[in-house]
């Protein structure tokens, strides 16, 4: 059965995959921070170039992370829509000018400033998104918990995240078989059923799914406890790899990008203004 998980590890032989989990997490945080503090279009375009380059290097194809992409695009669209609905003059406030492109309705005018502002916001998403996807898809799940732990998050939290990721395929399989058994008892979950009755009928799958999952949790937590999980404040990691030169280089790049973004922000302000 093809496990089409929403977010999963896609093993490849690439430079990005060879970086340690800690490096990827740290770079992700530095990079996101760098893109969050600035609205400067040029800086964002520069970061976007780095981001896309990293994605290309990872040898992961867009089609493989399509779901995540679409999800983010929808989210972005909604975000832009609401920014516009709540304050159509935000751009004018920021850039100080008011160039009306066309009048829409009531108090809503579409201005060049507002459009430019929203383009910048969208850019931020596009900058951060590939790196975020890379962190999840190119980090071996075994290293995931270790990397979270290495930046100071309790290993218990890290481990529960990684156990949860590990169980997604199992739970999907459970879901599948439960749903088949329910259909065999006349509960319609097929594609040719109306959306709402499908939704209503899905509740029938929920109870058995929760019960089976609780059972799984019970077994695994017993097994973990019996083997000393939670005994010490710290733990070591079987899969943790030592830092290599590429890790230091990547981290240096992350720091440089952040510094660059900071410098530009401090010297020239957060916004690049093409209107004056």
């Amino acid at each position, binding site marked *: 059965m093809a496990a089409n998980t929403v977010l999963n590890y896609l093993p490849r032989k690439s430079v990005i995959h060879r970086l340690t989990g800690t490096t990827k997490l740290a770079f992700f945080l530095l990079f996101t921070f760098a893109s969050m503090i600035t609205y400067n279009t040029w800086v964002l375009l520069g970061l976007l170039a780095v981001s896309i380059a990293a994605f290309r290097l990872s040898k992961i194809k867009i089609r493989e992370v399509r779901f995540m992409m679409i999800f983010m695009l929808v989210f972005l669209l909604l975000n832009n829509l609401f920014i516009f609905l709540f304050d159509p003059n935000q751009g004018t406030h920021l850039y100080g000018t008011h160039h009306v492109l066309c009048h829409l309705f009531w108090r809503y005018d579409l201005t060049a400033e507002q459009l430019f502002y929203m383009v910048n916001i969208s850019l931020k998403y596009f900058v951060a998104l590939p790196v975020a996807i890379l962190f999840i898809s190119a980090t071996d799940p075994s290293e995931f918990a270790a990397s979270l732990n290495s930046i100071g998050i309790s290993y218990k939290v890290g481990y529960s995240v990684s156990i949860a990721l590990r169980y997604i395929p199992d739970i999907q399989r459970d879901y599948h078989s439960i749903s088949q058994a329910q259909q065999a008892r*006349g509960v319609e979950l097929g594609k040719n059923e109306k959306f709402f009755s499908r939704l209503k009928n899905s509740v029938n799958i929920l*109870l058995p799914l929760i019960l089976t999952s609780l059972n799984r949790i019970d077994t695994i937590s017993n*097994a973990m406890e019996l083997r000393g999980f939670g005994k010490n404040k710290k733990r070591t990691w*079987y899969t943790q790899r030592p830092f290599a030169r590429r890790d230091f280089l990547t981290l240096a790049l992350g720091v440089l990008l952040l510094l660059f973004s900071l410098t530009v922000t401090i010297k020239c302000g957060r916004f690049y203004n093409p209107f004056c």
Partner: protein
Amino acid sequence: MTEQNLPVISFKDFSFQYRAQKKPTLTGINLDIYPGERVLIAGPSGSGKSTLAGCINGLNPFSNPGECTGSLIVDGVDAPHSSIFELSAHVGTVLQDPDGQFIGLTVGEDIAFALENSCMPQEQMHSITRHAAELVGIQDHLDYAPHELSGGQKQRVSLAGVMVDQVKILLFDEPLANLDPATGKQAIELIDEIQQKTDTTVLIIEHRLEDVLWKNVDRIVLVNEGKILADLHPDELLSTTLLADNGIREPLYVTAMRYAGIEIAPCKKPSHVNSLILDQTDQKMLQNWFHQKELSEPSGTPEPLLEIKNLSFGYTRNHPTLKDVTLTIYKGEMVSIVGRNGAGKSTLSKLICGFETPDQGTLLFNGRDLSGENIRHRAKYIGYVMQNPNQMISKTMIFDEVALSLRNSGMTEDQIREKVENTLKICGLYPFRNWPVSALSFGQKKRVTIASVLVQDPELIILDEPTAGQDFYHYTEIMEFLRTLNQRGVTVIMITHDMHLMLEYTPRALVFSDGQLIADRSAAAVLCDESLITQAALKETSLFTLANRCGITPPEAFVERFIEEDREVRDNGR
């Protein structure tokens, strides 16, 4: 054997009561286990044997709160007053479910889990992990993910995972429950081998006595109703009737000898069928018993119910799960489907029920082609019962659960009530009709799931592992119920790993291997065919060995004779 030594585990007037229970689950336990011993703890479900194990490894009372009285010393540690972590350095526990206890994402990581928790430096960790993997023979799979391993390999990983701590005591909680028969046999061999290499003390909790006795066991501790009833050498225990009296199945060859009127005594060494001492008179008695009665012949010409022709199917292209399967199921039959995990057994049932669509081939039901009918249509005459009742039950009340499929069919509430009540009566669940499902035992839940399928009046029921993890009492309860259904005219197909089930309840067995049907004959004949047994990862029955040792031919006739006698004894009560 090592009486002069100090015991490694010592219970003194020990009792344990779960916080949620009104009565203690264990009372007055006095038990000493010495270093290097191999002890089998046997008992029916709910006897307290798992609670006993839980007290040794610390799950009780540290994970499941409860109250201990008396004393329990485990490897010098005062168990009830230590902690689960302290005990884990002394007792290594291999749990029942090899899937559920797989923590790491790869074999290596899983084996190293305990070492990670003890903050061991990485280099040392890697070398110990490799060493433990070599001990159980899994060193070539260190990078494998759990889903790439077979059940037997997973169990090896679990064992290696507790071996890294250099524990003195190994505790196996129903190690055979989820394995196919051949893998179960290997598991017992592995445990034996590890015990000899490391000289640990081994405790095995199991109710499948005959399978554990495949290798030497020093003692059997029989537990029931929270008390220790016997603590004897296997030869001595098998010479008593204590096992059968407490709902544990004796080895089949022992039962056969009893039927033939042979007195079982420790001097006959009854714990292994191969080393059992059978003198001339014993052999004569078994032969006489065999010839005493003619086997009954099957009667009537059967009418086909389900015809499967040239069926092929694969989940992915170029990887067929089923290859060109042709077979016929007749009306009123009770058939078992056997073979190792992944042989295509479950896939076949999914194709029959319409969960998947075949790539090739036809399915005829009562001569009608099924290809145009979806799951819901087929469900009216083909019922499917999953292995785990918790995966099927979606309502909180029993009545609603059984009524579910009818509510979707547009019957009136009165019609539904009548139908459901009738079904509940057949299933012996009528007194419970207004109970919540959660109040039922596992076996009763199983019945509810069968009832919820039966309510649609199917002509054919397919059950996936109907008795997995059940002790002899519950096994008999479920199987006798299925037999009564069968006598009412319902055709029953069962997918199973249980060789006893196949022998006792299904005259015909379909054997699958690598997606192909490799045998279709009587269950007794299947379990007397050595090449077939190896190919399909089955396990020969000890009755076959016994027949051979007494020169009875053909051995399958001896097996069938036994089954008939057993049936009579069961029907008339002992």
